[in-house]
């Protein structure tokens, strides 16, 4: 019988897979002017960490079609630092019976702002196609590597003192200086045993 922790180890991924609809990425379908639209956007982002929105357009028309895809901030846009507005409007060319992918990247939730939700309008040829809602959550305490390293080292080194106090209490005096030998109790597996007397 599996012990409880092993059962939990198996159960957690299974439960996670069962809750597909709760997954953070929002992928949805929509119909617009003929092309089929799929949008992949995070449901939440960390403050200070760049995020991306992916739009996939596909159609079954026999000729090439061109669309102007635009992502415009709406409510709560002050929560985000957005890239150059020119990069938020892209012309996508769909080949016959093909698809086109458009990526809007470097959407960064501002650090220090209150937490909240921001909405973005995704429009195709000027017509609103989807309203994307992104929630901001508290991001890393430090973005840069050096302060991150300093913080982690500070916690770890401080904990060295705690570990030293505990280990000195439970170990023999002067143990840290002396070497330790090991001898097997004689339960070697058969393949390791020497047949010679």
């Amino acid at each position, binding site marked *: 019988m599996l*012990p409880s*922790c092993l059962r*939990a*180890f198996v159960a*957690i*991924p299974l439960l*996670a*897979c069962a809750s*597909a609809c*709760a*997954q*953070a*990425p929002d*992928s949805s379908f929509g119909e617009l002017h003929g092309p089929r639209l799929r949008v*992949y956007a*995070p449901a*939440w982002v*960390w403050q200070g*960490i760049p*995020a*991306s929105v*992916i739009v996939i357009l596909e159609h079954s028309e026999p000729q090439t079609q061109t669309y102007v895809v635009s992502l415009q901030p709406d409510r709560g846009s002050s929560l985000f630092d957005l890239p150059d507005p020119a990069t938020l409007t892209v012309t996508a060319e769909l080949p016959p019976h093909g698809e086109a*992918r458009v*990526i809007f990247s470097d959407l960064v939730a501002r650090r220090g702002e209150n937490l909240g939700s921001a909405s973005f309008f995704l429009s195709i040829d000027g017509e609103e196609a989807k309203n994307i809602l992104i*929630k901001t959550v*508290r991001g*890393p305490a430090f973005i840069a590597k050096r302060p*991150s*390293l300093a913080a*982690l080292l500070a*916690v*770890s*080194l401080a*904990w*060295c003192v705690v*570990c*030293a106090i*505990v*280990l*000195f209490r*439970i*170990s*023999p005096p002067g*143990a*840290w*200086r*002396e*070497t*330790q*030998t*090991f*001898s*097997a*109790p*004689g339960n*070697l597996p058969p*393949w*390791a045993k*020497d047949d*010679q007397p």
Partner: protein
Amino acid sequence: MNDPLPPGSAAPSPASGPPRAPDDGTPPWSLKPRKLGLRRIFSLGAGAILAAFFIGTGDIVIATQMGAQFGYALWWSYFILALAGWALIDMSVRYYLRFGKTPMSLFKDIHPGFAILLFVIVVVCAIMGSASQWNACAMVLTSFYPEVPLEASGAVAALLAAVLIFQGLFDRLEKLFAAALVALIACFFASALLARADWHQALAGLVPNIPRNMTPAARSAWTNLIVANAGSMINAWLILLYPYTMMEKGWFSNRLQEKANLLHRVRVDYAWAMLAAALVALPIMAASASVARRLGVIPQNYNEFAVLLDPLARQVAGKNVGKFAAKLFLGGLFIAAWTSGVAWWMGGAYALLDIFRLPIRMNSRPMRILVILFLIPSVAILFLRINPAVQIVIFAVFLAVVFPVVGLAVVWRISRRDMGYFRWAKCAALLIAIDIFALAVSILAGWGELSRLLP
């Protein structure tokens, strides 16, 4: 040394130098070990625990970055570094089999002051290493349950790990890890397959190469990734872990033939472990290359990577399996991170037990105390919410910096003539070459990181 002692029991060495061993008269490397037969293939045992160290968030982040920036072109670096890692593990096992001494004794033999340095390294690495794994576990769980705070998810993963170790059943742990290793490799390969990775170029990635006409920035990224990979694959003091697993199983003998048999068997075991670490990088690089080349985005974190796999995943039987591919990746990531977190704690606890001459057993009170000591700060660090991608790169830098010290000490110790049957000799020229190669790799990696840190 020949007096039987219970496993893990401690006894100070005689002050008159290393004890004489029964193999002193036998020419080095002259015995033929027992043939392994099929065991050669199915011998993954404690190596799975070792593999868990190597296949953690570090491996995944570095493989993701390599795949996104250079495709498969850096896959060869895993095998080169795996060979170095294998040699370093082998050196610690040879020392253990020769003297019957624990790995930390190797450093204390040189100077007791090494114990202080290693104590700090072990505590810092065990806390930072495990914290980054709980962070990754938390990100996976939070991607499925956004309403659960990251810190709570990480704490759940850490508590599960503590419960597993508290049971003190090493055999069960070994089997669980072997199964987990197979599962995570399957998950990553399946997600890469669904994302329609381009496998044709993978074989070319096995040949060591430097792309021509790289920009200075690309050249710098290339070097940095190799150095970071060295920090991840050659895990500082963790290369000393394997002898502890042998002690758990009572694998030691005073008879030379049995020592040779043991060495032969365990070499295959940790060779599988290193190979698994190199192998698991392939599907991650493949998936990452697909994302970067087709979508033009370098993923910033695991969740984004998983989301980006979704639109790439192919139609199977008329159904879009994108979400499934993302879940497979996240499932593989959870297993890799969780087992790695457990391994960090165990490796850290074994080393501290060794330094303080406490019983080296999973099923012991000091082991449980140490697990609690690691649990508290590694969960507390989650509240800083440091991006694990950044965290693990920093960590790899730290490991690469501390490693040369450990590597130099190990090579110096095993190259001495008192290694007896396992000593460096003319007939073992290849082994000597690999040992020196491993040392050179570790020093180069350490130097590379130091030169980046220093102004």
